[in-house]
């Protein structure tokens, strides 16, 4: 019975991982830009939720939407104001730029809101669901449903719509896309905006059951990177499955081997997967 609870918990946690990795899949996986500031985007989303709840009395729907809008703008700005100018440089210059951005975002938040930990009330999105003795945390369940919806939406957008094929064209070959009459910069900016919006939704939802602090992004970002790489770059469904997988593995190994070993197992498995499949689980080579 406990083991079922552990696996359930793992799936829920994995859903949360998938949720906050979805934005990274788009930027890193599709646009081939490493965004070191991803975790801090999540953090900003959490603070937007906190502010809307505390000062404007907004509920979950309001603050999730607000966070999506704010992060859309931040995403677009990050591209047009910063990343666009380093695209000509190497991979390293992108890392440099987004690392600087991450520090600025993290510590500007720190400056404004201080280093205090905050949290939202427990019961904003329901409490705990009891399914025949198996406890399911409602906020995480909602996060899971939204993660699946976001993944399907993103996948649909990329594979079924004109905008999607233009986005893909730009990520495949910028110059060729330009010759086809696509404006690569506009498409890239849109991708960053969409990724930002997804990340904002994730941050706002996570804020309902997690603590909020300026450095919370650090804790989350590394997981997101592993999720995206394990799923395979450029694969949106891959990130969802990888997220769930990592969640379950972490919970199982934490329960069976001890919490200090859960990340050991995850990283070891990750390296092993890359050895066998250098393109990740679902990536194209």
């Amino acid at each position, binding site marked *: 019975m*406990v083991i079922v*609870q*552990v696996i359930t*918990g793992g799936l829920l*946690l994995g859903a949360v991982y998938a949720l906050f990795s979805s934005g990274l899949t788009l930027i890193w996986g599709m646009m081939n830009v490493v965004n070191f500031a991803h975790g801090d985007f999540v953090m900003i989303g959490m603070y937007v939720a906190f502010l809307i709840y505390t000062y404007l009395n907004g509920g979950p729907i309001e603050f999730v939407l607000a966070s999506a809008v704010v992060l859309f703008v931040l995403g677009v700005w990050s591209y047009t104001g910063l990343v666009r100018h380093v695209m000509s440089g190497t991979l390293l210059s992108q890392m440099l730029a987004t690392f600087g951005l991450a520090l600025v975002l993290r*510590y500007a938040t*720190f400056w404004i809101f*201080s*280093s*205090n*930990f*905050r*949290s939202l009330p*427990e019961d904003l999105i329901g409490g*705990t669901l009891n399914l025949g003795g198996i*406890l399911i*945390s409602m906020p995480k369940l909602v996060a899971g449903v939204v993660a699946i919806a976001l993944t399907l939406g993103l996948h649909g957008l990329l594979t079924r719509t004109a905008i999607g094929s233009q986005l893909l064209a730009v990520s495949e070959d910028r110059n060729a896309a330009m010759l086809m009459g696509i404006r690569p910069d506009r498409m890239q900016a849109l991708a960053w905006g969409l990724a930002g919006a997804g990340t904002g939704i994730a941050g706002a939802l996570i804020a309902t*059951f*997690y*603590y909020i*602090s*300026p*450095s*919370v992004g*650090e*804790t*989350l970002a590394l*997981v997101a990177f592993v999720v995206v790489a394990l799923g395979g770059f450029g694969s949106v469904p891959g990130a969802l499955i990888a997220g769930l997988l990592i969640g379950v593995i*972490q*919970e199982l190994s*934490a*329960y069976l081997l*001890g*919490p*200090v070993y*859960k*990340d050991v197992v995850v990283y070891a498995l990750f390296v092993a997967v890359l050895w066998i499949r250098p393109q990740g689980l679902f990536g194209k080579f």
Partner: protein
Amino acid sequence: MRKLVVLGASLLALGLGWDASAQSTIKIGVLMPLTGNAASAGNSSKIAVELGAEIVNNAHPELAPLPLAATAGLPGLGGAKIELVIADHQGNPSVGQSQTLRLITQEQVIAITGSYHSSVTLTTSATAERYGIPFVNGESVAANLTERGFKTFFRVTPLASDFAKNYMDFMADLGKAGHPVKTLALVFENTEYGTSVADTVRTYAKERGLNLVSDIAYSANTTDVSSQVLQLKDKKPDAVIFISYTSDAILYVKTMKALDYLPPVMIADNAGFSDHSFITSSASLAQGLMNRSAWSIGKPGSVTYKVNEMFKAKTGRDLDDPSGRAMQGFLVLAEALNRAGSTKPDAILKALSETNLGPDQVMMGYKGVKFDAKGQNTLAATYLIQMSGNKYVAVWPEKSAEKPIEWPYKGWK
């Protein structure tokens, strides 16, 4: 680049010149983690130490039993005022060393207090030792800090062995009151702080014949703690002791609610559970939580109550234990400095080693302050406090209790 550095140097020198103009001030260095993961606790300690300097520098007759409170400045040094030079070590042992060097050689501080993390205190106090500068630590608990044979290092805070013994005595008392504790679980973060406290608790539990049913180490700043909670739920210990930093402390109480788990007795070992951020964000989920603390606000009108009011006026919240211990460390240093009547390191060290404060002369719940040959305060002690409403109140031992103990742990209910 040399130009840049020279520019920096002259700017720093400018700062120095400006300070030198105010003659009757004495500089004391304060090292705290003001950015990084422990920033919340570090900034709170910084404000508490600043309050300490305010109490010393201005006349506060209402706080009379505290040394130096009633008078303005340090009478032993002609009424000189203390100026704090605060530095951020970012939780990094090497940055801590660099900043210690800056404090000693650029700012010319005559003594140092800090640095929260035991790992940073280890390197910063080593640098201070090499320069012969007195270092008074108010809050780092790693046992090895006072085992290095240093001449300049003094520590005011109680150690793991003090509070591990407290927990055992407390649980024995609970047994006498009809709530026997036979099985114990230990959940601790696996850096130096958590492991060293857990080791000590384990030793004492064995001595008292408690059955340790669950012994869980975890990595701090983790994304999820549900497996630990499930583990506990499965083993059903009579009491659980948590040794955690703030982020994990918040996650534990949230997760315990989500997984509907309430141990009969939940004891927290200070740190994260004492962080004011934990109290403001999670008090409603942790009703009846026991915690170790040497700080108690006390009854209205008492010295501690007034100190708390002053802290509240600055920050809008109550003083917490780690910040209080940092402040006490500073006050002990100031008192010795005044007695030394000199800013020479040797005189200060001699005064420090002769420190002899009674229970009324300290704001924390220590039995006083008196250092042994290794520089450890032999009179340090702690209370146990319990979360009630939106704050902790002292409940154990009985003679310092403000309220009777509530049993069992209620959590969010």
